[in-house]
Structures are given as C-alpha cells and as structure tokens.
C-alpha cells in the first residue's frame, strides 16, 4: 500500500513538473509572447540581439533541464522510505522545494533579459497602456447556465449527505453514518464547484489583450482565449462532481479505502490531462495569433517575471506572464490580502507537516491517575473515568482486528480517533500501531481500544484498571 501511494505521488509529481518545465522554458522563444516574464519585442528578433536572447534562453533552459531530471531521479528515492508518513512528509516538502527551485533559472533569466533591455536602450518608463474599444464588450464567453447542472448535482449530494449523517435517510451499510465525513466531503466539493464559477467569471472579465491594430483580430483572439478557460472550468466542475458522486457512493456503501484511492487517482490523472490540454491549446492559440507590435512596457512591474506589483494599475486580476491563467496585482488592497493569505497558507502547511511528523514519532502513552485512564500523546486525548467502565478486556494479539478509519489519524505507528470496528456502535482508538496487545474498554456509549508503548506496559495498565 505504501509503495502504491508513493507511486501515485510520483506519477502525479512528474507530469506536473514536466508541464511546468515546458511552460516556463519553451524552446522556441521567438513565437512566445514573453521571455522569462519580459515581453517579447521586435528588437529582440534583430540579428545580433537574437543571438544574445538565444544565449540567455538556452543557458537557463539547460539549467532547468538539469533540475528537472535530477528532481525526477531524486523523487524516486522517496519510494524507498518504508514508513508511509515519513515518505509522505518528506515527499511533500521535496515537492514544495522543487516548485521553487525549478523557478530559479526563470528568475535568473528574467534578470538577464531586463539587463539586456537596458543594454539595448529599451528604457522602461514608457508606461503606455492600450485597450481596444471594440473588443471590450465583444469577448465574453462565460455562460452561467452550463455550470448549473454539475453544481446542482453537487448540491444534491451535499443535501443527501447531511440527511444521511443526521440519520434521516437510511441507505447502505451505514458504517460511516454520523461521522459527517460525507457531509464535509460534499461541502468541500460543492464549495469548490462554486469557486470554479467565481474563477470562471474572473477569467472572463480579465483584461483583453491588444495584439493587433485590427479590432476583429483582437476580439477573436480574446474570445478564443476566454472560451478555452470557460470550457476548462466547466470540465473541471464536471470532473469534480463525478468524483464527489463516486466518493459519496463509496461512503454510503461502506467500500474499502482502496476504492477511494482509485477514485482520487482517476481524478488526479484527469486533472493533469486537462492541464496538459489547456497548456497545449493556449500555446497553439498564441502561435496562431502572433502579436504585431509591443507598445506597452510594464516589465518592471513584474518582480522576477512572476509577481505583479503595480500601484498605478487599479485591476486586481491580471493575466500571468509565465505559465497559464491569471494572477493578482499585489499592489491592490485585495491583492495584498490574498498574498498575505498565501504566505500564511504556505507557513501553515509546513507547520502541519511538522505536526504530523511529531505525531508519527511520539509514542502513545497510558496512565491511570486520579480515577481516570488517561490516553496521552502530546496532550491528554481521552480521559476515561474508571467508574464509567462497564467491561475491560486484554487482548494479547491484534490478529484479525481490522478497524476502518472514520476520523482521526491512521499510520504505521499511530491509530487514533474514531474508527469503524465490527460489532461496535461507537469505537475510539488510541493505539501504537506496532504494539500487538491492546485493552478493550467498554463504557455506556463508547468502546475504546487502547495500548501503551510496549506489550509489557499495556499489560501493566490493564492490571491497574482491573
């Protein structure tokens, strides 16, 4: 199972990195709108200058290729880590680091292109902004009606899940019923569907590019680009809804977690394919509509060619310089909030990864104190009053004990939280995964399955409880 999960992560990471590589480091820069986040302009195509740009592009592309290949090879090594949590945590941290590292040649290239511009006497400061009066209102493609069906299905799933968890409908095995797992899942997916609609509207209202003096060309180009994005968000919403339906069925029918894993993998593959398709189509579109002449020079507002900071621009949403999609103007008040939120989210992810790591390596301990059985790991998780205990048994060997996680932590070392256990209505686990023996404590409402760091200590605690 560990190997399969690792392999799934690897198979998702590699195509993602390859897409990122081809988007950021295209071979034929002459056909692209930007070079390392600097607008491509006719001056760059002139004889000698073309050679200089070629040198910059080739040098940084080579560096990025080395990073790409070594990242793929190194990531294979993570599959050899036997502990699942350790593998997941280290792989996730590695992915985060590589996402930054693969950008370093781009950042370097951006600096070199800006220097080249200065050397060629292309002075930044010509802050001319252009707009095509005729294509502004002629290039909207977003149609809210097409999003109603997939989001409607998601909403029905959400309503059903709430009723299911409240035990107002009685279908399936009911293994996870009452855990609100289905409700949370449906809620997240429904929210995601709504978010896709918002993003589709934002992309549809994004600034139109002026690539020609002819209004028809501008209108066609912008319409085609926005149609591509609108279709992409719609497809994404459908894929999301399909996965939600699958997940809800899986939960209701009480199927094994492997089924969930298969569904999630299919979803990931579909998403990657969609990303690949979008990248390819965007590239073809840009090649088809070659930009005539650059009149704007806002390169200096693009920090490293990636982050947009322009206090003079009142727009929040702007098209990305590198990659596909849009980004925010960080000088905009809302942009500042979004940027701060992103930084917090990244910091939070690292904190959470660290926390998961600590949970994985900290053994679970039991003690009997002041009339309570206390289950402790980092903090007191469960306090079971001795007087509430109706029945206590000691089991020497876990054997065929196969709990199914409903909510909590399940790893090689730790099983903690609410689990589905055959024959029990409400089961809570607090177990060191590698310790064979455990104590089963039955109270009025809940049955606890607990153990200590070793078999010997578990036995000792059992004697104390008894």
């Amino acid at each position, binding site marked *: 199972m560990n190997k399969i999960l690792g392999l799934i992560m690897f198979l998702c990471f590699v195509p993602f990195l390859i897409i990122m590589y081809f988007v950021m480091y295209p071979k034929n820069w002459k056909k692209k709108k930007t070079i390392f986040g600097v607008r491509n302009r006719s001056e760059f195509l002139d004889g000698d200058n073309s050679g200089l740009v070629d040198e910059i592009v080739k040098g940084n592309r080579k560096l990025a290729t080395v990073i790409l290949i070594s990242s793929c090879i190194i990531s294979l090594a993570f599959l050899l880590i036997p502990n699942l949590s350790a593998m997941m945590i280290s792989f996730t941290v590695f992915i985060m680091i590589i996402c930054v590292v693969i950008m370093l040649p781009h950042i370097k290239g951006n600096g070199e292109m800006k220097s080249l511009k200065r050397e060629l006497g292309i002075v930044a400061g010509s802050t001319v*902004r252009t*707009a095509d*009066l005729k294509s502004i*209102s002629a290039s909207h493609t977003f149609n809210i009606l097409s999003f109603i069906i997939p989001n409607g299905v998601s909403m029905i799933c959400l309503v059903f899940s709430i009723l299911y968890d409240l035990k107002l409908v009685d279908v399936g095995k009911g293994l996870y019923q009452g855990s609100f797992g289905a409700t949370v899942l449906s809620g997240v997916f429904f929210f995601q569907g709504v978010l896709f609609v918002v993003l589709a509207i934002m992309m549809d209202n994004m600034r139109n590019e002026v690539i020609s003096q002819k209004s028809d060309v501008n209108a066609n180009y912008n319409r085609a680009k926005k149609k591509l994005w609108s279709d992409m968000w719609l497809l994404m919403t459908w894929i999301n809804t399909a996965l939600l339906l699958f997940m809800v069925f899986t939960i209701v029918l009480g199927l094994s977690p492997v089924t969930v894993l298969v569904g999630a993998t299919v979803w990931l593959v579909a998403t990657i394919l969609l990303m690949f398709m979008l990248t390819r189509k965007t590239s073809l579109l840009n090649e088809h509509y070659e930009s005539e002449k650059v*009149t704007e020079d806002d390169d200096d507002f693009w920090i490293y060619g990636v982050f947009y900071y322009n206090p003079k621009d*009142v727009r929040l949403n702007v098209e990305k310089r590198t990659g596909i999609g849009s980004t925010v103007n960080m000088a905009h008040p809302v942009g500042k909030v979004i940027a701060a939120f992103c930084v917090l989210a990244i910091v939070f992810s690292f904190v959470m990864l660290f926390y998961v790591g600590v949970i994985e390596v900290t053994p679970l301990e039991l003690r009997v104190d002041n009339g309570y059985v206390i289950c402790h790991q980092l903090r007191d998780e469960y306090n079971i009053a001795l007087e509430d205990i109706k029945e206590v048994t000691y089991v020497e060997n876990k054997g065929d004990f196969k709990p199914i996680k409903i909510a909590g932590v399940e790893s090689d070392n730790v099983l903690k939280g609410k689990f589905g256990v055959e024959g029990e209505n409400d089961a809570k686990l607090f177990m060191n995964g590698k310790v064979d023996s455990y104590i089963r404590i039955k109270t009025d409402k809940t049955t606890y399955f607990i153990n200590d760091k070793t078999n010997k200590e578990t036995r000792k605690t059992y004697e104390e409880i008894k």
Partner: protein
Amino acid sequence: MVIKVDDYSDVPIYMQIRNQIVMGISGGELKPGEQLPTVRALAMEMGINTMTVSKTYQILKNEGYITTDRKNGARVREEIKQSGEVSEDNKAELRRIVSEARLSGVSKSELKKMIDEYY
C-alpha cells in the same frame, strides 16, 4: 479601435481618452450609433479609475459627440451637430502648433500637406 494612455504624459488621462475617441469618430473608426464600452468595463480594461472614464464620457456628451442613457449606455451620436467653426481653444492650439512648426523649419506647404492628410 485601439486607444492608448500614457501615465507620464502631461495631458490628463481623461483628456487622452477623449481626444482619441474624437479622432476615432472623425476618422470613421467609430461609426455613428456605435456602442461604446461601459464606464466600468473601459476602466477595468485600461486599469484606471472609473471616475476618470466617467469624466471622459461626460465631456464627450457635453461636447455633443456621444449620447448616454441608462438603458443603452454610451453611443456615438447619430448626427453630430456641425457648427462650421473652429473653437477658440482649438484656434489657440493650432496657433501654437503652427508657431512651433515654423520655428522647427517646417514649410507652410508641408504643414498644409499634413492637414490634408489628417482631414
């Protein structure tokens, strides 16, 4: 019709847009009755404040080049009132241009040729 706005120009942005729309109407790029973008859409497109575009439209309306109403938005006026006269402001501007051209050594015939071209 492509319009350009320069943040560092001495001419205010609302006037830059106004001038280019007037040139567009005069040159036939904007036809009589043609719909203009909404204030919000044009402001978003140019990355400028909506008040700036609103001011431009107000001036164009006062000058009789466009009509605006809540239902149809802004449109190029079907029949622009022709006074047959050059305004005092434009006369002063023309005098300045002619003076600068003379000082730059541009001949009268060359200047006339340019007027013919732009007219």
